[in-house]
């Protein structure tokens, strides 16, 4: 009888760690300090075992050269904690209300809508969070028509987003009063009230295809969080171009907290507000 094949845990040498760290930093902007060594090693070892690679060098070649970029995506996913829930990175919504919208509306003519794009919207937590926050905290909310467009490439999550039904965990950061105002209990879950669900336009979009997104125009703010970090260099530039074209001159882009425009595109300017660093299509740009 033979013992089940049990691959030995791959060894990550000091030099491997450093080489990986510098590569990962160049690609993503995320820098692992020496005290993250255990965290990084464990995840590298896990993926090496899953892909049947024993030598770090071979695995490193896979993440660098694989044409589909799939393994790099999987690894980024493991190295970043990517969870979707209401009010995630809430400081950006505060930035939206306290800094971005006051600047955006200063340039508006009366009757012009405020347009916000959530991409990827996944199962809907982000666009609904934006709606809740605007209704709750933006003093000017009744003076403008606000259009929230929420898109994703995946039609399954879009259906869930439209349904608007969430468990305790997803809504745990939402203030109680807000939750009571904008959701109702349905068999132990929370359902976003129809008024809000019906006010958000959901649609399927592939951000990397500039021709498929040509009807997405005139946005004031785009939330594109925790997506571009998974793309290869060329697809990031394509997606950034799409976002640029979808924005009005002077419009803003919010990326995820572990993402930086310095790895994505040279089309936007840096804007520092009290609450967050965001990016802006130059006001002088031709639409």
């Amino acid at each position, binding site marked *: 009888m033979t013992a089940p094949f049990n691959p030995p845990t791959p060894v990550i040498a000091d030099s491997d760690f450093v080489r990986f760290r*510098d590569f990962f*930093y*160049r690609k993503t*902007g995320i820098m692992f300090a020496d005290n993250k060594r255990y965290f990084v090693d464990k995840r590298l070892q896990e993926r090496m075992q899953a892909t049947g690679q024993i030598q770090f060098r071979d695995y490193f070649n896979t993440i660098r050269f694989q044409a589909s970029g799939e393994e790099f995506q999987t690894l980024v996913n493991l190295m970043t904690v990517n969870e979707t829930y209401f009010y995630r990175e809430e400081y950006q919504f505060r930035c939206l209300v306290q800094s971005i919208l006051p600047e955006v509306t200063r340039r508006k003519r009366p009757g012009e809508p405020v347009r916000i794009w959530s991409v990827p919207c996944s199962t809907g937590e982000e666009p609904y969070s934006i709606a809740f926050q605007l209704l709750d905290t933006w003093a000017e909310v009744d003076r403008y028509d606000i259009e929230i467009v929420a898109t994703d490439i995946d039609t399954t999550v879009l259906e869930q987003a439209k349904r608007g039904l969430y468990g305790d965990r997803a809504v745990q950061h939402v203030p109680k009063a807000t939750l009571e105002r904008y959701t109702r209990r349905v068999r132990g879950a929370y359902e976003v009230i129809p008024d809000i669900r019906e006010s958000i336009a959901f649609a399927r979009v592939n951000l990397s295809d500039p021709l498929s997104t040509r009807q997405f125009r005139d946005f004031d703010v785009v939330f594109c969080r925790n997506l571009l970090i998974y793309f290869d260099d060329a697809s990031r530039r394509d997606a950034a171009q799409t976002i640029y074209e979808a924005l009005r001159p002077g419009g803003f882009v919010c990326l995820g907290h572990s993402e*930086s*425009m*310095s*790895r*994505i*595109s*040279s089309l936007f*300017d*840096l804007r*520092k507000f009290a609450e967050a*660093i965001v990016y802006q299509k130059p006001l002088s740009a031709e639409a």
Partner: protein
Amino acid sequence: MARILVVDDATTVRMYYRDVLEEAGFAVEEAVNGFEGLEKAVAESFDLILVDVNMPKMDGYTFLRQGRTMPELQAVPAVMISTESAAQDRERAYAAGANLYLVKPVRPEVLTEVATVMAGVAP
């Protein structure tokens, strides 16, 4: 401790500046291009900037030009360190806002001396 921001896309160059300058008692922060340099510079303050010319996403001239309009970077001394040694490159660097222009590779003793003189604070 005086703090220096190193902006260069070449990993070995950043390591070199870091090792030499830390050895001399400076604290060093790195950025791989001008855009990341701006992001770091608005998040924390620096006493000196060393910046390369050719980098992806944002080059050194654009970094200096934009930085000079931002309150955080308006007055921070900046050394542009380039592989380009033609006279017009030097002029472009000064026009963009550099205080000193050096040609690569920079000897370690020169780097330390420049940092000590220009950071304006003891290391």
